[in-house]
């Protein structure tokens, strides 16, 4: 029996919960799909579906086997992808991803560093936001990445976490512009620009919590629809943007925040257990590029952590 083919059909019926719709999706005749499922049930010695007049439903045994089938199909897909890489000579290719706004200088240092360390490896580099990169790391379509935290850790291993302090980008004519640095608490009541919350809700909420922790209750927080709107709001003096150190666009200035209370956290990440030599060299080159030209700082000393009873486990 062609097990993988039968499992694919099993999965389609389980997803559609309907033989007719599954057959349509698979572009095969419904009777032959029914026969294949029956054949699989015979082979496994287990009834996979309860058949009703309105459709089909997985039996408890079917549900258990569906989870196994999905795992089997996923690992078969990975096997085929690896074979394709070997066939096309792409086995010497490292697929890497970086987050947006890393800066060209940092990226250049990373590329040069990796090329020097691993001259034989072809590097395929893409720019991906955190949600997409986590998905691709899980599917093994990206081997190693530079990610922003908070980043879901399921199945990933991380390199050391680096900090990129945020400062205030404001209009050159602003009354705050002639100060060498700003205290976060002074931003209370002002309009602040972050990034669209949906792109990284966990980070967005972390920034707001950190602002309140340091005495800042913003008057409003603007979710900019795009970088141009964010820039325009800053230029008109109606809002202050919180961004990492940058070459300020004309008409604006960037000022650090006293005591660097806010930072983006960045590290390298790869699928746990798949940190081969090329991944290690890339992670190392990325770390050096980020701390060198990138200007990212090592993790500051740990803040105190006070357990709360509702957390249910001891620290």
């Amino acid at each position, binding site marked *: 029996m062609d097990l993988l083919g039968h499992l694919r059909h099993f999965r389609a019926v389980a997803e559609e*919960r309907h033989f007719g719709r599954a057959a349509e999706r698979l572009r095969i005749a419904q009777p032959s799909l029914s026969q294949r499922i029956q054949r699989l049930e015979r082979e496994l010695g287990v009834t996979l579906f309860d058949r009703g007049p309105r459709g089909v*439903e997985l039996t408890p045994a079917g549900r258990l086997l569906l989870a196994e089938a999905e795992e089997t199909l996923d690992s078969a897909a990975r096997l085929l992808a690896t074979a394709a890489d070997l066939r096309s000579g792409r086995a010497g290719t490292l697929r890497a991803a970086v987050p947006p706004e890393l800066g060209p200088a940092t990226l250049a240092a990373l590329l040069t560093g990796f090329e020097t360390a691993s001259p034989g490896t072809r590097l395929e580099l893409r720019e991906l936001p955190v949600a997409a990169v986590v998905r691709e790391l899980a599917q093994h379509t990206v081997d190693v990445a530079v990610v922003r*935290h*908070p980043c879901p*850790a399921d199945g990933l291993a991380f*390199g050391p976490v680096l900090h990129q302090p945020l400062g205030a980008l404001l209009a050159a004519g602003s009354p705050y512009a002639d100060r060498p640095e700003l205290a976060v608490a002074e931003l209370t009541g002002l309009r602040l620009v972050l990034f669209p919350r949906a792109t990284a809700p966990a980070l967005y*909420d972390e920034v707001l919590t950190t602002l309140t922790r340091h005495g800042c209750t913003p008057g409003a927080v603007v979710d900019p629809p795009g970088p141009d709107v964010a820039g325009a709001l800053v230029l008109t003096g109606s809002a202050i943007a919180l961004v990492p150190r940058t070459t300020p666009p004309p008409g604006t200035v960037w000022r650090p925040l006293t005591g660097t209370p806010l930072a983006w956290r960045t590290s390298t990440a790869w699928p746990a257990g798949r940190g081969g030599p090329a991944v290690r060299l890339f992670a190392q080159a990325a770390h050096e590029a980020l701390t060198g030209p990138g200007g990212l700082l090592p993790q500051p000393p740990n803040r105190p952590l006070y*357990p709360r009873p509702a957390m249910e*486990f001891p620290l």
Partner: protein
Amino acid sequence: MTSDRTGANRTGVERTGAGRTAVDRAAVDRAPYGRAARTRIAAAFADAGVTGWLHARDLDTGAEIGLGADTVVSTASVHKVCLLVTLYREAAAGRIDLTRQVDVPAAGRTPGGTGLAAMLDAARLSLRDLAYLTAAVSDNTAADTLWDQIGLDTVNRTMADLGLSRTVAVHKLRDLIAALAEDTGPDSPVDPAVVARLRVLDPAFTNHSTPRDMTTLLAALWHGDACPGDHGAALRRLLGLQVWPHRLASGFPYDDVRVHGKTGTLPTLRHEVGVVEYPDGGRYALAVFTRAAATTITLPAADAAIGTTARLAVDALRARAATGATG
């Protein structure tokens, strides 16, 4: 307005009592309300920066809503429900006396921030009072004292007897906490690289279950199958005495709605399973498991997402019952 209408129609829904009505499950999952509710639930999880798995079950009609309902998850302290159901089931079978007193010495306690785990002096409590502390404040010492009395095997066998095929306890809390401490070592528990290596987050390593298994267990408890008679009532009372307001209960800020639950927490994991009861007789078993992207210990948005998604699921089940929809 809306609630009046829902309530009026709700009482018109025929109840089977036993809650074992055959439901056309395929029709349930195809129904537009189910799809819309699942979309809203997924959006609420994403909005809170968590990955979530949920199963909700109308205890009387059997109607259900799920999102990753068969995903195996690390249960953390949610597994205390399995322990308590087993304890009360053993008592109902006459194999254990819940009023028996047990010594809890001052030394050698399983650590934790509540109850006996946080108290300093030797104590002597009945099994049922240890059960109260386990349910009300997730007392790790009280729970391990009970685990030691009845054993992991009895709990696992009971879960299998109740039809929970994917619910297994492999260690007591002291071993779970020891593994957590060993993996953390001297490093910061909020460092993402540390969290990534914690074995207790991996369901293959630690106590585990699925959202659907958990609502199966709660349904058995509410229907009197798991712990017959007064013993079931006594355990349902305990689950209603849990003190935490921040998760499941936060989604039902209504004086006339009763919430029972048991939380579970480990770094980045926040869970709660429970039953909510509406005054019109609607009863719903809920199991919500989450894993946050942020490693922060205190994360109210993730806690609240458990309540929000549970309410979205209950609202969908109630809307379905109110309109008498069958798919």
